[in-house]
């Protein structure tokens, strides 16, 4: 019931008079959706065609092969996936908590901490961790979590803060408990903003995870670093292009998820 009330308030996707034809807008949407994966596939094909056409020397072949590239990709994805899941698990409940009337006073403290986490250069974070907690996959994940906490935390808080007070009052007026208001009114309305924050965190993590090579956690940074120290552009290009493609692919998937998870009627 509450959602229907909110639906009419929040709806803004009424088709305009002109393209009232449902088929055309659906086609345009599909085309728009497919543009990124097609572009990325084209870039990958171009990269592999380039690599195939070049006469790779021994050193290049040691990095540019299915095993190494595959392993780097998998390590990278593991780092990004795990760190983003942990960030969401920490930041979303924390963000919710910090918008409740009691803990709200602590909000500036946690925001400042998250800010510091992102302001400290990621390499610096990795080094600090290496000195105190050693090197390895977990330390890389910790650095990624600290680094990408801010967007998710802040967006969760902003999303919840921007919910129209009258809607919350309406919900309370209809007899919903505070918790019910949270889960049935506030969160659905805040989800678009929250998802935007998670999307940002994902992309930040794909980029920052290239530094994981410095802490023995592998990832696409392995190819980039090898290319730099050995002065082999092919290896460097492979690592960089794949990292960029991965970031864009992750962004596209997150956009898809955003579309699917966006509550209907908003």
């Amino acid at each position: 019931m509450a959602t229907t009330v909110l639906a009419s308030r929040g709806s803004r996707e009424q088709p305009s008079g002109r393209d009232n034809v449902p088929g055309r807008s659906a086609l345009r949407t599909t085309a728009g959706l497919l543009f990124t994966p097609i572009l990325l596939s084209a870039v990958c094909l171009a990269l592999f065609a380039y690599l195939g056409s070049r006469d790779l020397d021994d050193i290049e072949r040691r990095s540019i092969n299915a095993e190494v590239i595959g392993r780097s990709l998998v390590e990278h994805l593991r780092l990004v996936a795990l760190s983003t899941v942990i960030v969401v698990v920490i930041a979303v409940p924390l963000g919710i908590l910090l918008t409740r009337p009691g803990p709200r006073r602590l909000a500036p403290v946690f925001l400042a901490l998250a800010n510091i986490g992102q302001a400290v250069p990621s390499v610096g974070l990795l080094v600090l961790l290496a000195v105190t907690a050693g090197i390895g996959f977990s330390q890389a994940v910790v650095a990624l979590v600290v680094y990408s906490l801010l967007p998710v935390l802040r967006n969760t808080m902003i999303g919840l803060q921007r919910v129209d007070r009258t809607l919350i009052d309406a919900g309370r007026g209809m007899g919903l408990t505070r918790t019910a208001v949270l889960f049935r009114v506030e969160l659905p309305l805040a989800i678009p903003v929250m998802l935007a924050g998670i999307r940002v965190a994902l992309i930040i993590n794909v980029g920052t995870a290239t530094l994981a090579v410095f802490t023995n956690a592998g990832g696409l940074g392995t190819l980039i670093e090898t290319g730099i120290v050995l002065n082999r552009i092919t290896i460097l290009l492979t690592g960089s292009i794949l990292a960029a493609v991965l970031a864009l692919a992750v962004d596209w998937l997150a956009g898809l998820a955003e579309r699917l998870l966006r509550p209907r009627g908003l």
Partner: protein
Amino acid sequence: MASSSTRRRVTMILAAVLLSASCSLGTGPIAPGSLSAAGSLAGASFTVGSKEFTEQEILCHITSLALRSVGATVTEKCGLAGSNTARTALTSGGIDLYWEYTGTAWISFLQHTRPITDPAEQYKAVAQEDLAKNHLVWLDPAPFNSTYALAVKSDTARSLGVRTISDYARLVTTNPAAASTCVASEFVSRDDGLPGLEKAYGFEIPHANTATLNEEAIYHAVATANPCVVGEAIATDGRIEGLGLTLLEDDKHFFPVYNPAPVVPQSVSQAHPQLAKVIHVLAAALDTKTIRELNEKVDIEGQDESMAAQAWLEDKGFIGK
């Protein structure tokens, strides 16, 4: 009457001027020593660069002080991050000189994949090709060999029973977990690194038993056995003695030679023929024992690189006190 804010501003400007003046005093002329008998570079000016690790910084300061003692004006650009950066600085004219290793140039810049085992032959091949292809002149090399090696903590070597790389190869094949090895990404990809080593000694270490770290971090990692007990090392590093590590003997003589030599653009070498003469005397004095001691002074005893360089040059009488 000057207001307090104006006075403050004047004070700050004065301080800045004094500070910059004192900085430039640090690269002014040096009292001459025995090197001035080799040649004079009065009126010449050079920009000396180096890579970022201790040995390179020491060489940078040694060169800068030596050239200043024979009358040259030197701008220092020591500590450029990476072989690539230093080399590009040289070819683009950002610096006039830096010390490069024969093995490194052969593999990385001249893009060969198999090194030459004889030191003199390797040097000649590199010098000839770099001159012909890139118009870079290789001055006289120093006799020390900054070669790759495998380092183990001395006690661990005893308890594991490894003294040579053949022993290590046997251990890797029978019990790879006990022979966990730290490597840098460069070492993993070069023909004169891990792949060649594996081929020469007939072993293959599983990826899971290697850890990829920054070269500089490996010494400490091996010393604390976290995450590895064996590590790639440079033979002249001061931390080998300082952290109680020993180098495994390369019984099959696999590793090539890395003699350092100053590299200058052809134009610089032709304009200042005395440069080669000064370097000739200097390079000959840089043997393995000397460079190891200098590295130790900096990495273990914590001395400043330029102080250590100056002390050594004064001790040898190359420059005046």
